[in-house]
Each structure stands twice: as C-alpha cells, then as structure tokens.
C-alpha cells in the first residue's frame, strides 16, 4: 500500500492540469462571446477560432480527467541531467524564480550590469554552487561584458541604471 501512495499523490495533482485546461477553454469562449462579428461574411468571424479552440481545450480537460480516473498518468520528461528517481526539488525552483524575479524588478532601477549579476549569482547559488568569490566574479564579468556587447557591438541598449557615467 505504501508504495502506491506517492503515485496516487502525483495523480491527484495532475487533475490540476485538467482544471487549468478547463479554465483556459472557458476563458477563450467567454472572451470570444464579447467580440462583435461585424465585417465578416458567413459562419466564420473573429469569434470562431477562439470558440473552437476553447471547445477543444474543454473537451481535452474532460478526456484527461477521465484518463486520470482510469489510472492514466502523464509521463515526466527525461534528459541527460534529469534524475526522476527523486521528487521535485521545490526549494531550488523557488530560489530560481526568486533570482529571476529579482532581475525583472531591478533591471530598470539598478541596470542590467547589477541585476544581471544578481540573476547569475542567485541561480548558481540556487543550483547548489557554493564557490561564492568565483561565482561573484563570473557574475559581474558576464553582466558587464554582455552590457558592453549589446550596447556597443550590437546597438541594443540594455539599461545602465545606477552605473551611469561609470560604464
């Protein structure tokens, strides 16, 4: 009995996918019904495709739920660096998302040379690297280097932020 418990738990969370599909399908149809079908001839207007896609999503939500009730399970994707024998490491994911969000929040205020360095340093930390000095040097080198590459060589202005006048 104990060996089936984790599988069953994974299955229950998969109903969330069916729910998400259902929500997306309803969203598509509700949004489409708010459109006017002026300037269209015949049965196809701006509404048609969203309604059909919404219907497809709702149908797949139902079929997926049926499949799950009958014991079907989605197959998690493998890969060279993927070890599916242990469960998902939510702490790592959380830290990665935090580092990513920090960059999105800070890029306009502090500039890419700072926010990009925080992003790289934060993600290496999240992924388990503990060579802080080396990582900090690589982070700063990468973010300053890419800033110069984009601004000078490629002509794509990345925000300079608080380092204005220094770089």
């Amino acid at each position: 009995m104990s060996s089936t418990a984790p599988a069953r738990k994974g299955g229950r969370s998969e109903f969330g996918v069916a729910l998400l599909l259902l929500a997306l399908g309803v969203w598509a149809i509700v949004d489409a019904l708010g459109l006017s079908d002026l300037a269209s001839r015949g049965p196809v207007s701006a509404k048609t495709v969203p309604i059909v896609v919404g219907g497809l999503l709702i149908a797949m939500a139902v079929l997926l739920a049926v499949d799950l009730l009958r014991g079907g399970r989605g197959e998690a994707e493998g890969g060279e660096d993927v070890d599916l024998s242990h469960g998902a490491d939510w702490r790592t994911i959380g830290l990665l998302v935090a580092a990513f969000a920090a960059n999105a929040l800070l890029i306009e205020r502090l500039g890419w040379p700072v926010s990009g360095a925080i992003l790289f340093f934060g993600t290496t930390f999240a992924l388990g690297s503990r060579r802080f000095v080396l990582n900090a040097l690589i982070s700063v080198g990468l973010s300053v280097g890419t800033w110069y590459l984009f601004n000078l060589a490629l002509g794509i202005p990345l925000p300079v932020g608080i380092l204005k006048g220094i770089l």
Partner: protein
Amino acid sequence: MDGVSSLLDGFATAITPINLLYAFIGVLLGTAIGVLPGIGPAMTIALLLPITVSLEPTQAFIMFAGIYYGGMYGGSTTSILLNTPGESASVVTAIEGNLMAKRGRGAAALATAAIGSFVAGTIGTLALALLAPVIVKLAVQMGAPDYFAVMVLAFIAVTTVLGSSMVRGLASLGVGLLIGTIGIDPTSGQQRLTFGIPELADGIDVVVLAVGLFAVGEALWVAAHLRRAPVEVIGVSNVRMTRDDWRRSWKPWLRGTAIGFPFGAVPAGGAEIPTFLSYAVEKKLTKHPEDFGNGAIEGVAGPEATNNASAAGGLVPLLTLGIPTTATAAVMLGAFQTYGIQPGPRLLDTQATLVWGLIASLFIGNVILLALNLPLATVWARLLRIPRPYLYAGILFFASIGAYAANNSTFDLWLLLVIGLLGFLMRRYGLPVVPAIIGIILGPAAEKQLRRALQISNGELGGLYNTWFSRAVYAVIVILLVAPPLIRWIRSRRDAGGTPIAQHHANVEGQ
C-alpha cells in the same frame, strides 16, 4: 527556375567571406549546443533572434541553418559518450553508441556518426535543392482550402505521432493555438484574450514564447530533478574507423538517409520515428546480429544518418509551404516572420538569394562540421564536464537578456517567467512541447487561410473541401486520428482475451 543553376548562384552568395563567417559561427555554435545537455537548436535560434535583427536576413538564416545542422552532429557526441539517456532524436544512437564507447570503441562510434551525418546531410541537402522547385511548382496551384487542410494535417500529425498520449498532445496543441490567438485579430481589428493590456495587443513576441517554453521551462525542469552524481563521460582517443568499420557503415548510412529524408519532409514529429525505424532495419539486415546489444556500429551509423537526413527533409515544407514540422523549424518560421518574410511557394522567387544561399551554405556547413567534429570530437566532449550550476544559470541569464532585448520591456520578463512555468508544467505532466510551439506559430496562419477560404466560397462550409487535394488531406487526417486507437483496441482485444482487468492494463500502457 532550374534547381541546378539556382544552386550555383546560391554558392556564389554563400562563398562570400562574410557569409562563410556566419556559416562557421553557426556550425560552431550548433555543435556546442548539441553537445551541451539541456539546450537545443530551437532555443538557441530563439535566443539569437533579438541579436540578429540588425543582420541581413541572408546572413542570419545562414547562421540559423548552421545551428540546425550542427546541433545534430553535437547531439551524437553526447549520446555516445554520456552514460545517461538524452533527447528523443538521439536516444537510439545512445543504445549501441554508448555500448561501443564502454567497450573502448567510442572513437569508431563518433567517427561513423560524424561521417554518416556528413553523407546524409549532403545527400539530403541535394535532395532538398532538387525537390524544392518541383514542390513550389505544385504549391503555386494550391488555394486557401488546400493550405488550411495541410496546416490541420500538420497539427494533427505532430500531435498524434509524437508522445504516447493523444489527449495530452491535443491539449498541448490547444494551449498553443490559444496563445497564438492572443492579440489583435488582423481581419476585424478586435483585441482577443488580451485583458486590455497594451503589451499583449501585438501578441506575445515569438522570442519570449520560444525562449520561455524551451530555455526557461527546461532549466526549471532540470533544476527540479538535477542529477546529484557527477555525469560519467567515457573518454576516447583519436577518432578513426578501421576498414571493417567502413565496410559495415556505408550501407546503413545510405539506408538511413533514404528513411530519414521523407520522414523529415512530412509533418510527423521530427526524427524520433525514423531513427527507431532505421535501428530496426539495421538490426534485421545486419550480418552481425550478435553485436546488437553489445555495441553494433550499424546501430549508430543508420540512426545518425537518419537524423541528419530528416533535418534536411524538414526544410522542404518549411521553405516551400511555410509549414514547420519540428520545433526548430517552427522557430525558424517565426524568425522569417520577424523579418517580414512570409515563407510559402513564392519564397523561392521573392527571396531567391536568401533561399539558395541558405541551401548552398548547408553544403559548406556540412564540410565544416565534418572537419570540426572528426578530429576535435574529444575536445567537444570536454564541454560535457561543464559544472551544471553554470550551464543552467547561463541559460537563464541569456534567456533573460534575449527576452528583454526583444522589446526592451520588463513586462516581457514576467511573461517569460509565466511561459517558463507553463513549460515546466508541461514537462512534469507529459504534455509534449512541440504541438504547442507549432500551434502558436502556425495557428494564426491557419486562421487566415480558413477565413480566406470561406470568403471565397461566400460563407459556404463546402468551400473548405471543394478541391481533390484538400479532400485527400482530410482523408489522411481521419486515418491518423482513427488508426492508432483502433489498432490499440484490436491489440488489447486479442492479447487480453477479453478480461476487463488486462484490457484496462493495456489501456493504461497505451496512454
């Protein structure tokens, strides 16, 4: 225009120093990302899109094509020398290739993979050059209903053939089509699914979508399940083949090419099926059946050639019809659209320099790839030892620059995170990513053709299937939808002998 003379013009384009340089950069990058786990050609081309907008389209596409081919070469190095299963297209190579490497024959495996890729790539590119003008001649007669039918075929084929569950494939396609609908409807000018957010009015940028689904989604997914033990890379010394290896390799190369090219040219989900087919064929035809399961060189030579030939085949529908059959081709189609180029039968006329320069540079790229991979395979293998925190931190770092640089907008970074989490969810619950990206990129084009077809027929639904071609395509679609469940049902009836428990079990396995 005649294929051969156009191809010669193409060589004149490709041979200029600047274009040669971009071809070289492309294959170099392609090999590197092919070797590295967790990063593939689709993601790389998407990341390079914001950078390449300042380039000439010809140069950008020469580089993209180099990445596309180079990724195939590099992928074989990983699957042969790494002791873990890799991406789907190289899974088959890994079976025998890894066994060969363990027995100290890794050098021969790498050599037969590289030379086989060269042979298949060259023949495949030649076939592309000869076939493209012929298909274009047929395609100019295709009307809106025909295009719509072919696009529906692409959706259904990618969905039913890939992965093990049709429901999950169709769900993924639906999500893709939904995302593709976001933005202003080009026909009526109304905003759809935008919540009134101005940044969404033009739709979600293809860079954000592709980078989110592939780069961020993959990085988050791998991070959640990162292999704790260091990877085991099998060492090799100088890469060469014995006379016996040559004798046993050349036929599988040619057979692999013959299998891979047509499969690549039809929308059937890329290299997964043909490589398995090639492996099965070689196993059946070999004079050394005892070697299969112990490292048979035929089992590397055949699938690796298949792999590259199908990459060449995939360019046929992309360049002649504007229909992608793989994730990489879908991103390249997105790249064409960013340049304001609409791929389709007129592409060979309107962008002759680009298309033929691209095809010619594929030949050149193949030669460079052989020169880069044969003597330097051991150098490339060193990339496999890159510490994983740096690899995945680097992917997220460059994903963030790419998404931000596309529109200089922070909104895109948040969008990138949302799409990345969606990509994570899809990998976690077995929803294939390829139908989603094909739906996103091809969906708007399909809607355009649908509405055009119905405008021509004045709203009559019959206008969708009033040509013999569209009817034939719909027949194929019905077969694709009906055949797999039917076969599964018959098989479960026969194997199970009617007991409900066994039937249920077969159903579960079939999902």
